[in-house]
């Protein structure tokens, strides 16, 4: 007997362990019964109380996902209040009856009024908890964060899940200084202290199907209420799918759902929603317009807005032309649009030309001359003519295999680029917000000289006014 036990000791011990653990495994409830899977969080402040809204995935084996709209699918919005984030989460636990699980939380939407005081007060919980395992995107809500959370839950094909996914996909098309928690804190603790965050709103959708062109006009009309009318039109042309920066609003013919932002990187404004028909976002917006017969539905809108945040507070709202400038400067943004007007040459007559930035290479370099800092942008743009708008077309203008980026057109393109950047620079100087990390650059690469330069200034925050910005642009057409 003992010999048998000795011979098979490993098998016996293994069997005992397995038998011992089996009851724990078989009778263990599913993790989803103990943990609520939260996909996005919204934070608002009412008086002194914090309202936490969360999109929770409700596992539903029977019903098809997203049917019926209005949050009846597999995503539900739950709210809880508290004096601070921790107590709000505790109350959320009581409401849900489960522990909030942030492992799949990929976006944190903050009400704009939270930035009146230092917003890090509200983000601190997410930085310290080990519950949040991913680098969630930080989004600013124009009005109420809960509205955006509810609206994104109400949208079909699990919009709540892909809210940040779309922002992530749009990284190439946005200003793409990553607006996630990590980068926010990196910028917060950097010497420059400034970062740009995208702004989303929730508003009524356009009218039902068949009226998408009117939708675009309505949305344009809506956006005209803001100060950024011209800028939003421009940004529509440039980079339509930039939910992070907010640039490219009005994509998809004005149906500014967050889902549309990922699908219209190359579409110009005024295009119908059906133009991107194969994209899931367009499908969702189409389905919405079909199903929402008569009753306007709320959608998450990207109106091409962004805000500049310094030391946790909003300094100013970034208008569309400056967003375009940031897109141009950003090394991660690969796409965009440049529009030039009143072009007259052999091919065009008083034409408005829209160029797509097919490829972009930006190098920034800083150096000192006679103790003064010079910050240089070097652009290498490959542009493709995308749209021509003029009264009388001639056959020559229809050429495809032709480099139109020459002569007057090239000069105008350079002017347009310089204008966008100079608007941004002037704004930054005026507001003392270093959105292009001039301080960080010089601090890293010319540490001693830069520190000496800063010491020599009366107002150390006003260093941008003493930096000379230069721009070298090399543009060529893509055949």
């Amino acid at each position: 007997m003992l010999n048998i036990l000795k011979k098979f000791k490993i098998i016996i011990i293994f069997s005992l362990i397995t038998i011992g653990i089996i009851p724990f495994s078989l009778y263990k409830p599913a993790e989803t019964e103990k943990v609520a899977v939260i996909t996005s969080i919204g934070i608002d402040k009412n008086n002194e109380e914090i309202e936490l809204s969360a999109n929770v995935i409700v596992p539903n084996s029977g019903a098809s996902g997203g049917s019926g709209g209005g949050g009846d699918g597999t995503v539900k919005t739950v709210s809880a209040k508290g004096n601070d984030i921790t107590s709000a989460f505790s109350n959320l636990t009581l409401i849900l009856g489960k522990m909030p699980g942030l492992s799949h939380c990929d976006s944190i939407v903050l009400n704009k009024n939270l930035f009146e005081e230092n917003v890090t007060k509200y983000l601190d919980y997410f930085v310290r908890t080990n519950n949040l395992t991913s680098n969630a995107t930080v989004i600013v809500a124009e009005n109420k964060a809960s509205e955006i959370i509810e609206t994104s839950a109400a949208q079909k094909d699990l919009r709540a899940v892909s809210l940040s996914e779309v922002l992530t996909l749009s990284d190439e098309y946005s200003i793409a200084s990553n607006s996630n928690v990590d980068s926010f804190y990196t910028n917060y603790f950097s010497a420059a202290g400034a970062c740009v965050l995208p702004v989303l709103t929730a508003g009524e959708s356009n009218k039902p199907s068949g009226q998408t062109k009117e939708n675009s006009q309505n949305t344009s009309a809506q956006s005209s209420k803001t100060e950024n009318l011209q800028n939003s039109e421009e940004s529509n042309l440039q980079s339509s799918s930039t939910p992070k920066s907010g640039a490219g609003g009005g994509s998809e013919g004005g149906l500014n759902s967050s889902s549309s932002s990922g699908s219209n990187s190359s579409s110009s404004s005024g295009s119908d929603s059906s133009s991107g028909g194969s994209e899931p976002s367009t499908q969702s917006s189409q389905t919405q317009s079909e199903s929402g017969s008569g009753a306007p539905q709320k959608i998450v809108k990207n109106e091409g807005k962004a805000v500049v945040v310094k030391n946790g507070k909003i300094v100013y709202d970034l208008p569309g032309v400056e967003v375009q400038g940031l897109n141009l400067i950003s090394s991660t943004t690969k796409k965009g649009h440049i529009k030039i007007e009143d072009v007259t040459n052999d091919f065009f007559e008083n034409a408005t030309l829209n160029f797509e930035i097919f490829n972009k290479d930006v190098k920034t370099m800083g150096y000192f001359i006679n103790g003064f800092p010079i910050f240089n942008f070097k652009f290498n743009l490959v542009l493709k003519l995308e749209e021509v708008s003029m009264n009388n077309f001639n056959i020559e203008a229809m050429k495809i295999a032709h480099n139109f980026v020459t002569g007057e057109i090239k000069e105008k393109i350079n002017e347009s680029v310089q204008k966008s950047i100079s608007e941004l620079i002037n704004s930054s100087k005026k507001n003392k917000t270093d959105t292009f990390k001039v301080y960080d650059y010089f601090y890293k690469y010319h540490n001693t000289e830069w520190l000496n330069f800063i010491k020599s200034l009366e107002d150390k925050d006003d260093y941008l006014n003493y930096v000379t910005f230069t721009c070298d642009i090399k543009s060529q057409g893509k055949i």
Partner: protein
Amino acid sequence: MIKKISAMQCGLFLFLSIISLKFLVFPSIFSQYAYRDLYFPVLIGLIIDLFFTIVVVNIIIKNPHLTFKELLTRAFGKAFAKIALMFLFVYFFVKGVVIVKETHNYFNETLFESINWFLFIIPLFFLMGFMMLKNFRAIGRSLQFLGPLMLLALLFTILIPLSEADFSNLLPMFENGASGIFKAVFFCSFTFGDYFVLFLFMGRINIKPNSKKTIMWYVVCADVLVFAFYVVFAGIFGNLGLNHSLALSEIIMHTMVSTSTGSINWINIMIWLFILFFEMGVMFLCSSNILTQVFKFKSRYVPMLITLSLLLLAVVYLYLSLIKTISIVTSFPFCIFTIVLQVLMPLACFVASKKLSGKNKVTLSQVYNTKVVKYQLTNISGTTTSKIFVSEKRFVKHFKTKTTKSAKTKKLNSSAKKLANKSEVQNA
């Protein structure tokens, strides 16, 4: 026959030892002192370790048949050797406990929302107990199998986040002065001293002409990979590295690439689990091995049970709190103890080796049974082959004391005589 390990297996053990403790919690600890310059203290520590590794490897090659205990016993006496071994036991045991707690955190934060303490610790105890019953060669063979996977996991961990790393975050260097760097080296000294495993392999490595090269190759590879990891960590997180406690999982999860690599990341996590289990196993195997050497237990179960009991006590006392464990191993007195140990141990071996060189060199026959039987075999064709039979049992002779004929010695002598007689008969 004493089962010796090959140079490759020894190199793999060293590789495992070098990567242990350096990829989970300690990057954030380094960052607490050195901020974005955290790769400098790591570099300093690795260079010092490399120096001592070379010293110890040279001692091993010079005295291939002497164990650590024998070396110190012959040079300084039994008491010194036992005290040194007990210090080594403490070192390996504490390292094992830290790895257990790091693994628990890894399970809790990366794999599960929450994990039942018992479900984690009980199977782990069985696994550690099983590994403690094995010898170094068995574990070494397993590491040979796991080696390519380990390398793959390391490369994945370093290369995948590379696209997100902004190496300008490493600038400016020495922003907070050099004091932070040296503080990091001091307070994180427990992560170094990886050459200590070599003390357990002394006299147990199958030394061949290229053994030194093989072992050093593994050491250098591991050092380069560890350094590269810390550079990438600093590139991604910069000064905020102190906020990221589980570097191994956070460095990948905070990169955009993870959304697309998804499933591949899980393979990486699984391989890292194997690495962590082996790290734990090796540390506790070293601990139980030391207990066997000190107390001369006949059965391997006894030191295994003692080690597991101590582990249980430690785990219950610390209640699997990683913060508490880290605060102990990074406390000032413990760091002093660690550094003194890391310097004195190789120094003691070096002095002992010098003492036993030249006229006092310990020969193979002094270590093994002095009775050597040489017998000849003649086959049908008339060719003769000769073989030397060496007694399988080895016993230590004190350098200055006279040999005493114990019963074992008598038995060995008699068996050797019988064999000698047999060979004479055969020759006849």
